[in-house]
């Protein structure tokens, strides 16, 4: 990139169950996001007038999340009135797309300092609230063989031969790693407790993780998408994959990403603005890509996206210390590792969305902070962050510590 984009900080809220009994249900999404903006301002004694844009991913931008929540959050944080904001939606990639867009704006010299991240209160604005052709227009659905993501995840498992035991084992490990990282304080630098207007803590740390998860408990769960598949979605998927006899429905709530509430914010800018404002770069964004693959299976984009990202950076798999693949479903992560020839030991080393949850638009920004904290902790250099995305898209961002 013409001007390297530096990451000065990456923070996130803790995550909690995205239902009325979740701890963050009572917090308006605009306040979830504004709280992080205020934290960035306080941590860095930031002159907010210097921020050129606030880009927030949000997948269901209606109701409490409607009307350009990024601009609303900047105002709710009482940032300088000169700060604009934009909300974007690239499904589950939204948060990372915000980061990549910020890097592009800085790389092009168009802007100097940008906050990128996302927010999703899935308890207040449930998935699919925004409707849309891709999942609710029958004409489109039949023409495009548009099936729910879970069918795609089960299809990947079927094609690749991942057994129920394998996907469950992956999930158990995700919980174990996430609990260890949380309890060892490895997330502490980035996780900002959510407080009410009185300063009383509402949620201090991730509370979705279930450290006592084991194979026996997971085995007891029923597949999430078998019934849906039987309605006809399986037939639609198989129309594209005639070599498959039938889809094995291995994914359950236990080995799929959790529905949670949360937000993320990453402060990104040029080296020059960093010097001017006394901000120390923690990492640089080396390369970023977004691609699309077969929209029917939908979730196979991350591997190809990461490969393209490596190629653009002129690097190989061996040049990367750790890998983050969003655990939308266990099979997505397993496919990613297979595509790139990765060991689980270097992939999602502190667990992922199966354990901690996936607040759709916010997750990409959260993965930046998790990867960066871990690079620093282990003295590593580079991390690749990838997510599968609706419509068969895949996204990757490559960061390097400085």
């Amino acid at each position, binding site marked *: 990139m013409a001007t390297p984009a530096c990451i000065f900080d990456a923070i996130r809220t803790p995550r909690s169950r995205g239902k*009325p009994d979740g701890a963050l*249900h*009572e917090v308006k999404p605009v306040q979830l996001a504004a709280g992080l903006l205020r934290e960035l301002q306080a941590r860095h004694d930031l002159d907010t007038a210097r921020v050129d844009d606030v880009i927030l991913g949000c997948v269901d931008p209606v*109701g*409490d999340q409607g009307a350009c929540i990024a601009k609303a959050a900047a105002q709710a944080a009482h940032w300088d009135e000169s700060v604009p904001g934009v909300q974007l939606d690239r499904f589950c990639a939204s948060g990372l797309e915000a980061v990549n867009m910020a890097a592009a704006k800085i790389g092009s010299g168009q802007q100097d300092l940008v906050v990128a991240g996302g927010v999703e209160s899935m308890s*207040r604005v449930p998935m699919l609230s925004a409707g849309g052709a891709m999942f609710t227009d029958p004409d489109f659905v039949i023409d495009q063989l548009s099936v729910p993501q879970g069918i795609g995840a089960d299809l990947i498992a079927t094609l690749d031969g991942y057994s129920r035991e394998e996907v469950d084992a992956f999930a158990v490990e995700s919980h174990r790693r996430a609990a260890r990282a949380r309890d060892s304080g490895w997330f502490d630098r980035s996780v900002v407790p959510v407080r*009410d*207007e*009185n*300063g*009383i803590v509402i949620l201090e740390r991730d509370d979705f993780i279930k450290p006592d998860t084991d194979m026996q408990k997971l085995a007891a769960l029923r597949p999430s998408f078998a019934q849906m598949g039987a309605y006809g979605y399986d037939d639609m998927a198989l129309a594209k994959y005639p070599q498959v006899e039938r889809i094995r429905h291995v994914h359950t709530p236990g080995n799929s990403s959790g529905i949670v509430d949360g937000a993320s914010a990453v402060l990104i800018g040029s080296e020059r603005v960093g010097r001017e404002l006394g901000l120390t770069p923690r990492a640089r964004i080396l390369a970023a890509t977004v691609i699309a693959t077969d929209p029917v299976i939908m979730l196979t984009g991350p591997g190809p996206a990461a490969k393209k990202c490596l190629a653009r950076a002129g690097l190989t798999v061996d040049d990367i210390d750790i890998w983050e693949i969003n655990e939308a479903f266990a099979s997505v992560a397993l496919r990613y590792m297979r595509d790139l020839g990765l060991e689980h030991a270097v992939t999602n080393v502190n667990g992922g969305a199966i354990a901690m949850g996936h607040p759709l638009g916010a997750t990409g920004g959260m993965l930046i902070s998790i990867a960066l904290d871990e690079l620093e902790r282990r003295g590593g250099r580079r991390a690749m962050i990838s997510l599968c995305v609706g419509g068969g898209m895949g996204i990757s961002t490559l960061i390097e510590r400085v």
Partner: protein
Amino acid sequence: MGEFRFHQDADGIVTVTMDMDGPVNTMSEAFWPLYSGTIARLEATEGLTGVIWTSAKDTFFAGGDLNMLRSVGPDDVERMFGAVERVKALMRRHERLGVPTVAAINGAALGGGLELCLACNRRIAADNPKTKIGLPEVTLGLLPGGGGVVRLTWLLGLEAAMPYLLEGRQVSPDKAQETGIVHEVVPADRLLSRAKEWILSVRGDAAAATQPWDMKGYRIPGGPSTSPRNMTRIAGAAAMLYRKTRGLLPAPVHILDTMTEAAGKVDFDTATRYESRRFVSLLPRTETRNMISTLFFDMNKVRGGASRPKDVPPAQVRRLGILGAGMMGHGIAFSAAMAGIEVVLKDISPDAARRGRDRVADLLDRRVEKGRMTPDARNAVLAHITPTDRAEDLRGCDLIIEAVPERIEVKDAVLREHEELLAEGGFWGSNTSTLPITRLAQKARRPENFIGLHFFSPVDRMPLLEIVLGEKTGDETLARAFDFARQIGKTPIVVNDGTGFYTSRTIGTKMIEAVQLVAEGHDPVRVENLTRALGMPTGMLALLDEVQIKLVNEIHDTQVKMGLLDPAKEPNPEARALLAEMVETHGRTGKAAGKGFYDYGPEGRTIWPGLAAWRDANATIPDEDIKDRILFRAVLESLRCLEESVLRSVAEGNVGSILGIGAPVWTGGYIQFVNTFGLQRSLNRCDELASKYGNRFAPPEILKRHAAENRPFT
């Protein structure tokens, strides 16, 4: 502590009779052990078939412990949040006992009292029309934090709940039934038997023991806050709130926000927790502390008769004479006739007197139109007023109030002509707003029976009466004047004599300061808007137009002529000159002529372009200074009134300034303002303003003394 008496009858129904120490039941510290003990006992009671909650007092339950609430500082907020949540958890247990529960509302159920009722399945009220039911928290800068916002919103729906929550409307049992707050109104002696009857009638009906919010499929009347219609309504309500509060009062905003969250954004339990957070956040705020201090504690002191001589027995005015049927006279006639007093309304001609009565009729007709009064009641009130031009008709009045033009010779003349018509032991009141009572009383045969009764315009709407003591005014006269004020529903403050007493003198300073700003070349539009941004109901220039610039000049001239004011010591000579020029050169006499600081046309008022002559393009001043100049003039004048003993108590200064002369509610009145703004900070700000704008802002000794001793004004 008192007790919650617990009695189970043969049908298994438990009656809980709340009887806390003191005259009323309140949510004081003693409430917690009584309530939690009772809930636990109910849960453990075998064969429980229903619960009736009632009170051993005249009232049902009085609400929160304001003394405790106003002592909550920022460091206590988290502890308070915990305490509120614990009480609310009990209320959840209360409403989930699994048996039908009834609030048998024997008397007033306000605030926390009504919240307790809302945790019952059924609310039955005794039919006493004097009983008040409502959630007045907002009027004291609070919100109903015991589940009141959430439960009432769920019960009535967003729109119907708004007046109760955002304005603190209190209603009689009948009206409460009409709205759906109570289910039944029965004769007082049937209250408990009816409660039992209801419980027996719903035996075995699980729905009767289930709150709407715990019922599957319950829909909030009028739909959720997320419906397009309600979204528009909420946005409109927010704009209307701003118009009313100028963004200066946090409580109604917190209430509207909590209502919005409760009505369909989050589940019931989350909403009540959110309500607790929004409630406790109000407690340490200065606005809240000011409002509780003045509108509750000071107000109770003032209305309770702290300034009324104790040893004079209470008395009532039966027959009132009013001299002058103009703006003030007819207004006084209205207020007195509404209270059932016989009124003789005298003016110089029968026509003039009749016109006064016609204006009372107009006021009454408006009430009839709005459905607030029956035509019969209207006629009865009007029949109390006898218009006349004959002095003799006033004979036997036990009070005569003169409301004639503010000229000393006119005042002296009516006194001379009418004083002897007073009934034996009757007293005389002057409605002067500017002339010293001691001077007017000089011509009285019985100066001990002479007193100032300064009403405010429009009398039918303004709640304040400034009672002014002349040097020789007797205790009995003061006591009777006080009783008269309460008889006609006014709140009386009692002040000592002096030019402009307390209210006219103080309001005069902020008006002249606004004129001074214009005379210095500043933009009058900005001055007016910043005055309203302070929370004053109207701009000072608009107010001058209302009271008539010409009249203000005349009063000033009279006071100079009488030696009450020394023109050499005039602190705002430029402003005085501007006012004189407005009237004498430009004929801008005020609103009545359609020409004052504003032009008045069919589209409303616009600033008179002629004021541009005073504009100085080089004049600059920060917004804060404009605001503080106007606010501090009134604050300092109030402190001087206290120093000079024109004000006899801080409470009367606070209450009088809010009710009579437009002190912003958030200040808690012009003296209380200093307490929460900070004594030393006030002193510093005075010094700053004095050095920039003149000696009129120099801090009075009383402020220096209190600041040095760090002693708030109480």
